Structures are given as structure tokens and as C-alpha cells.
């Protein structure tokens, strides 16, 4: 296995890292066994910001096209620039607001992940989220060019954000599930005292973590009835969204994470609401931020209502 941590930042390497996350290579059981997600935080964060800027530009297409129609080029450019700044800001702010609670909840749930791996996990799931989001950017841009209806574009963007968010969060949950499985495996390995056979993984800050045996070996001895893991090089190859091979997750772990997920979704939605306008209504002049009133859910429900009733 070649080193996955580059010394400096390079564009090609950051794409390679993103690809590893998307393929699920970065979160395979072999790596997670070391309680580590092998991604460079800085490199992937820069990629995330780049993807967010791309999606922001796609969102700004609506303002550009409408601005060009009404010959208000300066406003259109400003709105596009604002969108390109705000989409990365939305994710960075959401990360900052939710990271401490994820770390604390994670510690309470007892998955034994340290702070840096939790941050890496969150960054990886944001990378998935933004890769999906920006991959749908061309669809949004295409509809923005050909649709004068503001409400349709807002709803399309909300749906696209929701889809990307769901995939990003399911990546987070599935990886958490894998980590928890490994944790269970560790506890069992302690119980059946098989440590002497295993060489501990080379890790600087996990020197105190108990050594994990290869999962397949452990299962063959302790739980012979369970099927073999899909992370072994058998076909078909597993993706990052696949269910963890062992489903022995304790209920309280999931309860804690579902609570955290709710917090994350609420924060994300509300952050989006605070940072609006992202698209820019054609009826109102450009403004960096709108006055604070109402909230995301009320606004979306009234938008859906007005779209379908034409009111």
C-alpha cells in the first residue's frame, strides 16, 4: 500500500483522494481497523471547497441568465460571486457548528474514535455530499438557463441539496457502522485473548489502542456462522454505502447518532436559511444577506404551496 498522505497539496492528488473516498477505498475495513480514516484533511477540504464553488457557480447561472435578460450584468455577476462564496461557507459553517457535538456524541456512544479521525470522517462524508451535489450541478445549471420560474429553481435546488445530503449522511452512518463493528470485534478479541498472534498496526497516536485481529480470522474462530466480509477481495466489490458486514450495533449507539443527525440536518437547513439568497429572486435587487425572518421549513412549505397552487 503506497502512502496516501502527500507532503504538500496537489490538484491531482486531491482528486485521487476524492476518488478513493467515493469508491469507498478510504473507508474499507482494513483501514478502519486501525481506527483511522486515511485521508489528508487539508487536501480533501480544499477539494470540498472547490466542489462547493463549482456548485455555487451552477446556482448562479439562474441570476446570470435573468440578469442578462434585463441587462443588469453587475447585479448578476455579484449574485453569482455571492453564490460561489456562500455554498462553501454553508458547508464550512455547518462543519464548525456540528463538529464539536459529533465528537462529544461519538465519545458518549463509545466508538473510541479520537478527535482527528472524527474530523476526517466528517470531512469524508462532506466530500461525498459535495461530490454528489456538484455532479448534479450541470442539471441545475441546465434548468436554470431554460426556466424563468424562480420557485421551480428554488425547489430543484432544495431537492438536489437534500439528495446529496442523504447520500453524504448515509456514507457517514455506514462508516460509523463499520467502525462500531470493528470496535465490537476488538472487544470480542480481548475476550477470547487472541492478541499474541497479531502484530499491532503502525500508528503514532493509537499506540494505546488494542490491536485488532483480521476480521475474517476472528469470525472464523469466534462466530463461525457469519458470512465472510465483502471487504475481502471477493466479487462483487463493495461500495462505501454498503451495509457493514456485521450488524451487531448496539441500539444506544444508533440512538445517539440519529439524534446527532437530526441536529446536523436542522443546522444545515437553518444555516442555508441564514446565508440566503443563494439564487437571487429576479424581483428583488441584489443583496448579500436578507433580513432574518421566518425559518427554512416554513419558507419551503409556503414555496411548495405557492408553486402548486400558483398563488
Amino acid at each position: 500500500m503506497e502512502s496516501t498522505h502527500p507532503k504538500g497539496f496537489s490538484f491531482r492528488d486531491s482528486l485521487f483522494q476524492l476518488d478513493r473516498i467515493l469508491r469507498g477505498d478510504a473507508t474499507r475495513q482494513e483501514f478502519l481497523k486501525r481506527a483511522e480514516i486515511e485521508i489528508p484533511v487539508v487536501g480533501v477540504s480544499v477539494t470540498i471547497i472547490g466542489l462547493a464553488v463549482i456548485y455555487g457557480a451552477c446556482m448562479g447561472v439562474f441570476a446570470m441568465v435573468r440578469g442578462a435578460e434585463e441587462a443588469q450584468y453587475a447585479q448578476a455577476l455579484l449574485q453569482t460571486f455571492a453564490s460561489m462564496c456562500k455554498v462553501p461557507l454553508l458547508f464550512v459553517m455547518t462543519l464548525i457548528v456540528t463538529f464539536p457535538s459529533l465528537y462529544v456524541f461519538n465519545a458518549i456512544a463509545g466508538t473510541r474514535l479520537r478527535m482527528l479521525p472524527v474530523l476526517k470522517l466528517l470531512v469524508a462524508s462532506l466530500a461525498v455530499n459535495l461530490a454528489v451535489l456538484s455532479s448534479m450541478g450541470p442539471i441545475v445549471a441546465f434548468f436554470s438557463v431554460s426556466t424563468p420560474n424562480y420557485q421551480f429553481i428554488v425547489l430543484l435546488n432544495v431537492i438536489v441539496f437534500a439528495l446529496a445530503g442523504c447520500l453524504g449522511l448515509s456514507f457517514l452512518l455506514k462508516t460509523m457502522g463499520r467502525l462500531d463493528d470493528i470496535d465490537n470485534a476488538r472487544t470480542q478479541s480481548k475476550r477470547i485473548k487472541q492478541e499474541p498472534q497479531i502484530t499491532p498496526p503502525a500508528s503514532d497516536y493509537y499506540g494505546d489502542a488494542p490491536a485488532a485481529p483480521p476480521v475474517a480470522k476472528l469470525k472464523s474462530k469466534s462466530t463461525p456462522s457469519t458470512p465472510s466480509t465483502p471487504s475481502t477481495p471477493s466479487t462483487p466489490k463493495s461500495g462505501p454505502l454498503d451495509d457493514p458486514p456485521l450488524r451487531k450495533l448496539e441500539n444506544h449507539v444508533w440512538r445517539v447518532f440519529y439524534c446527532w443527525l437530526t441536529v446536523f440536518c436542522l443546522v444545515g437547513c437553518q444555516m442555508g436559511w441564514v446565508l440566503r439568497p443563494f439564487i437571487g429572486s429576479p424581483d428583488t435587487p441584489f443583496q448579500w444577506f436578507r433580513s432574518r425572518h421566518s425559518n427554512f421549513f416554513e419558507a419551503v412549505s409556503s414555496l411548495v404551496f405557492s408553486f402548486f397552487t400558483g398563488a
Partner: protein
Amino acid sequence: MVRGFHTVDHVLQPTRNLDQPRQTHVQPQTQNPFSTHVRLRTVALLVIVLGPIYGAVMGSYAWLDGHREFHQQILQMIYSAMKVPMLLGITVTVSMPSIFVINSLFGLRDDFRASLSAIISAQAGLTIILASLSPLTVLFYVSNTATQAYSMAILFNALMFGVAAVTAQILLAIHFRPLIQKNARHRWIMRIWIFVYAFVGIQAGYVLRPFIGSPNAPTDFLRRESFQNAYVKVWELVQQVMFGN
């Protein structure tokens, strides 16, 4: 030319090509079901070569109907001929990035080229089917002299496109079959693709109007009023029908 026909055969009957090596007992390593016997570029070229056939026929309405001379309608025919490959090209280009990312997330990146090949083959299939339907359209244009002939021509073309699109989806399923046999998750990729493709394709078709060209309207590449949303328009129509406002 021969290679072109071979490609057409492959697009329409991928399984026949796949079965051949099995019957002749070729070595197992050459039996890779995903080693398409034709190159992707050749299949993509089919869209560019065959797409304009139906487009040109579609745009010949005012001429075949007797409203205009050939030299008056040739521009519309060229426009329509260009628009069919454009329509497919835009739809596939816009939808492809999301399918690529979803493919990776489902752990199917290694098969992406094979899925891409299936998708492009289905597009080529669509143009082949449309080209094969073009004599029907010519006959309809020439023989139809009803008072609402233009509206009927629009409906007839919609029907032809509908037939071609449904058949192309069947072709897509045939091309995806070996992939689905390898990994059942490809079925989801195919479903997601069909959804995204239809969602984008309907809007692209709406924006690229006029394809037929009304005999009473001047020839235009795009209509100014075309830049509307197909779904919003449909919803407005539904509202008009249901609530009468």
C-alpha cells in the same frame, strides 16, 4: 461502411454478439461479456450520423405538406437535423456526472466504462429506431391533408419519439443485462439513469423546439418563447383543465 452496419447490429442485438464466442468455444479469457466488439467512438458516431436523418424528415413538414418550396424549408430541415444529436448530446452530457458519482458510491466504478457503453449504445439505438421510423413520418406528412394537419403532425412525431424512447429503454435493459448479472446493483444505476435522463431529456426537448416548424411561423433555430420550463407548463395546463383559471 461495413463496420457501421456491424455497429448497428451490435447496438440492436448485443446478446447475439455475446453468444457467438460461447458457441464457438473460444478460450475463457476472451469471453469477457463487457469487451464490446465495437468501439464506443463508433457507437457515438452513429448518433451523429443517424440522428439527423429523422431530424431532417421531421423538419420537412411544411415542404411535404405543400405549404412551402424545398428551398424555403431546407433551413428548417438542417436545423431539425442538427437538433436531434444535440438533444441526445445535451441530455447525456448533463446527466452523466451524477451517474458517474452514483456509480462510484455504489462501488461500481470498475464497471463504469461498461455502463457508459450501454448508455451510449441505447442512444445510438434510439437514433437507429428513429431513422427506421422516418419513412412512416414521410408517408404521414404526404398523406395527411386534414384541417388540423400541423397539430396532427406534432402528435404523430410525439408518438414516434415515444415509441423510439420506450424501445430504446428496452435496448438499454438488454445492454445492461450482463452488468446486472454480474452485480444486481447495476439495476439501480439503470433506474436512476432512466429517471435523470427522462427528467433532463423532456426539458431539453422542450427548449430545443421547434423541431417540425409551423408553416405559418418564420424559420428559427430556437424560439424566443422556448426558454420555458416544460414541467411548469404542464402543471399550468393541468391547473387550467382542473380549476379553469
